């Protein structure tokens, strides 16, 4: 007689069954806050949906969710027999803890944040998807460890960094963890690039050197674009997709659109 003790978390089974219906799970991470992960995630999700792919966007930034705001998602998930169906906006199914918390503060321990993430992943009925884009929180804590431990096929990561040393140093740690956790990194995206007056400044070389060190491509250099802030201020995903930043992102991530 075998006794399977309380470590049997049935949510992990639910999550695995849901992820079996998802072609690609793409983690967008950086380690550092404020480098543009959420904007990259939202823009990429909208562009993939525009190209005819079935796309979901999971806001895994449990403490500081912003995906719902970027898509102006206010409708709560719809309850059904298969779980919670997220609201679809511009063809993207958006799930975020903020659809429940509605702007309230979310004070959680790391353990608590993991529980919220597992609950959302277990309950969300994405249906069949080509891509699930996951907007990751800053830091290499419980959320990153949980998502990079799912051990699912089709999980890949994109590391977003600003050109400066503060960002690339943290991104370096993230790439180390991805490597040791055997999560394939598609590459590095440099964001908020401003042309340097002095060509060849050390800070401008950071992302390229980072990519080179980990033998992954520098996927692209995304410009600092004031149009992004304007679109975000208005929660206007169409305006966001129309920016110069978005065009460069589309070019940088072209392999996803093939």
């Amino acid at each position, binding site marked *: *007689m*075998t*006794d*399977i*003790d*309380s*470590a*049997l*978390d*049935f*949510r*992990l*089974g*639910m999550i*695995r*069954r849901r992820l*079996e219906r998802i072609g690609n799970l793409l983690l967008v991470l950086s380690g550092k806050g404020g480098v543009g992960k959420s904007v990259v995630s939202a823009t990429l999700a909208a562009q993939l949906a525009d190209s005819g792919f079935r796309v979901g966007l999971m806001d895994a930034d449990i403490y500081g969710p912003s995906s719902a705001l970027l898509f102006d998602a206010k409708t709560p998930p719809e*309850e*059904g*027999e*298969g*779980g*919670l169906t997220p609201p679809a906006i511009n063809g993207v199914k958006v799930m975020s*803890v903020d659809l*429940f*918390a509605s702007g*309230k*503060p*979310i*004070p*959680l*321990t790391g*353990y*608590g*944040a993991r*529980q*919220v993430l597992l*609950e*959302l992943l*277990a*309950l969300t009925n994405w249906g069949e998807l080509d891509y699930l884009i996951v907007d990751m929180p800053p830091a290499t804590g419980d959320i990153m460890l949980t998502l990079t431990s799912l*051990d699912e096929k089709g999980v890949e990561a994109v590391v977003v960094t600003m050109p400066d040393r503060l960002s690339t140093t943290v991104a370096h740690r993230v790439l180390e963890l991805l490597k040791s956790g055997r999560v394939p990194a598609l590459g590095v995206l440099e964001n908020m690039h401003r042309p340097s007056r002095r060509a060849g400044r050390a800070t401008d070389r950071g992302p390229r050197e980072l990519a080179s060190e980990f033998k992954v491509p520098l996927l692209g250099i995304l410009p600092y674009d004031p149009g992004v802030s304007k679109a975000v201020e208005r929660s206007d995903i169409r305006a966001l997709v129309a920016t110069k930043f978005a065009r460069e992102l589309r070019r940088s991530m072209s392999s996803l659109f093939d």
Partner: protein
Amino acid sequence: MHRHDSFSSGFALHPVSFHRNDYPNALPQSRSERTRLLHELSLVQGIIDTVNETADEKGGRVQSFKVGVGELAQFDIRLVRQLLNDIRRGTPLEGAKVTVVQEKSRVKCLSCGRSWDFHDLVGPMSTDEREMIHFLPELLSSCSRCPSCSKSYFEIEGGRSVRVIEVVLND
């Protein structure tokens, strides 16, 4: 005792479909109550599928399993019991003994160290807030403060939601 931490792929599923019309007497009329039924259906289905998968993976037959129903998520234990009995019908779990127990919720304030019953915190909550923690129990800290020190720095010590406490297989 065998500790089971994760699931590997490659074993058969035994999904069983259900419809809320199967529960005409249990289907509440208000949106909030209907929501709860659908949520409980989804979770109980998840329990049945996962326990079946685990038994397949281990190559055994489930002799008994025990489910805990935490107070915090405010599930109706009678409904959970009814759903467990109905949904496992026709699956390898049909002949297993199932025990469903209510688990008392305890919330500890990590700031002052006091522990509280869920009932001490839920009183002032609105219906929407109760619904929020029905789905995501940890969001208790978004709408409650410690009655002793007023901080929102909580740890749920037990009784958060529905869980599988134990599965016993015949090898």
